[in-house]
Each structure stands twice: as structure tokens, then as C-alpha cells.
């Protein structure tokens, strides 16, 4: 639609017309401000906790395991220098040979959701799949944080009680 609108405006005499081709979907995916009746609906990005352990592909499993256990968590997100999510390492994956690299043992296809996704919808999917948390990333794969199902359910219950 926007390309047609852009050309139409030019035909109407506008000389400096730009087309934000990626549009509102892109804007929302990066958590940028919006207005409107639905703008304040809770989204996955609102509750994403950025305080999550990360590691690199070349990190040794032994050192990652120590960090994970010291944190009390059981997951570490594998990212590159740009903050792009490459995988995840959790649970039993951490129990391998300390000298192995993260790249060899990680899960390279972790499920992710966008910051702009409806919190209600994402929570329902987590409940259906019986998962306790999900990674939140931008549309270009950059890590935003982790969304815990318990936090999401609590927030939705609060919203419901307040409605």
C-alpha cells in the first residue's frame, strides 16, 4: 500500500516523498513508540528480562557451566559480537566435556518471539507447549531478553483483575 501512496502523493505535487517500506511491523518489532487504543496492550517485549547469561561460540563448556551454576539459572544464550542470537545451551547440554566449545553442544534453533507480539498470545503458546520461558529477539535476531511464563501469567492476571 505504501508504495502506491507514495507515488500518488508525488502525482499530487509532493516533491519529497519517502516510503518506510518495512512499515509498522518493523517499527513494533524494535519496540518503538506507538499510539492508539491497542498501543498499551502488554507485549512480550515489555516483560522481557535483559538480565540473562550470554556466551560466545568459542567459549569452553566448562567455563560456561561455572557461570550458569553460579547464577542459579540453567540456560545461557549464545550470541555473536553483534548481539545476534546463534543458539542456546541449557540443562543436560552443560554436563559435557569441559573442554568442548559451546558451538558443538548448543541448540542452534531456539524458539524466539518478537517484542511486539501480544503477551497474551505468546503466553498461550508457552502454556500449550509447556515451556517455561522463551527468548525475545528483534526481527534481525538481536537478543532483547528472556520472557518467563510465570511473569507473563502474573502480568496478564493483573491486567485481567484491573479490567
Amino acid at each position: 500500500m505504501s508504495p502506491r501512496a507514495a507515488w500518488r502523493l508525488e502525482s499530487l505535487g509532493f516533491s519529497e516523498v519517502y516510503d518506510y517500506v518495512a512499515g509498522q511491523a518493523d517499527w513494533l518489532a524494535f519496540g518503538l513508540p506507538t499510539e492508539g487504543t491497542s498501543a498499551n496492550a502488554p507485549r512480550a517485549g515489555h516483560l522481557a528480562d535483559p538480565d540473562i547469561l550470554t556466551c560466545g561460540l568459542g567459549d569452553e563448556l566448562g567455563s560456561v557451566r561455572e557461570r550458569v551454576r553460579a547464577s542459579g539459572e540453567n540456560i545461557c544464550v549464545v550470541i555473536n559480537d553483534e548481539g545476534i542470537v546463534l543458539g542456546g545451551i541449557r540443562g543436560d547440554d552443560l554436563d559435557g566435556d569441559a573442554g568442548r566449545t559451546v558451538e558443538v553442544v548448543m541448540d542452534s534453533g531456539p524458539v524466539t518471539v518478537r517484542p511486539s507480539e501480544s503477551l497474551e498470545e505468546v503466553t498461550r503458546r508457552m502454556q500449550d507447549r509447556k515451556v517455561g520461558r522463551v527468548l525475545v529477539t528483534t526481527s534481525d535476531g538481536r537478543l532483547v531478553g528472556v520472557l518467563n511464563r510465570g511473569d507473563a501469567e502474573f502480568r496478564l492476571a493483573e491486567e485481567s483483575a484491573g479490567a
Partner: protein
Amino acid sequence: MPVEINRGQVQHLVAEGAQLVDVLPADEYASEHLSGAISLPLKTLDATTAARLDQNRPVIVYCWDTQ
């Protein structure tokens, strides 16, 4: 010819006074739109409705995505 831009460029141009225009249907605009955008649905876009825009300022149009 209209110039395609990304969200960083949108932010920069808006900060410099560009007009941000949502060309989606009015009900979609009411539900949610980029902060500061005005509604000018493509279906109703003509010389009359476009007259609310300042021809001396850049205009940025957007819809949902590339579809």
C-alpha cells in the same frame, strides 16, 4: 521518485520535521500507529485529503509491512 527508507531514517527525518503518514484503513490507525503519525488511508487519498499535508515538508508514508 519516492525514496525507500528504514526506521532509523524515519526517526531522523521526523526529528527534522517530516510528516509521518499512516495509509492503512482508519480503524487500523485507531488501533495502533506510529507515534506522531496522521491517518490518510490509501483508499481516500486524493487532492482533497492530501491538502492537509504541507507540500513544503517531506512526507513519509507507511503501512503494515511490505505486503
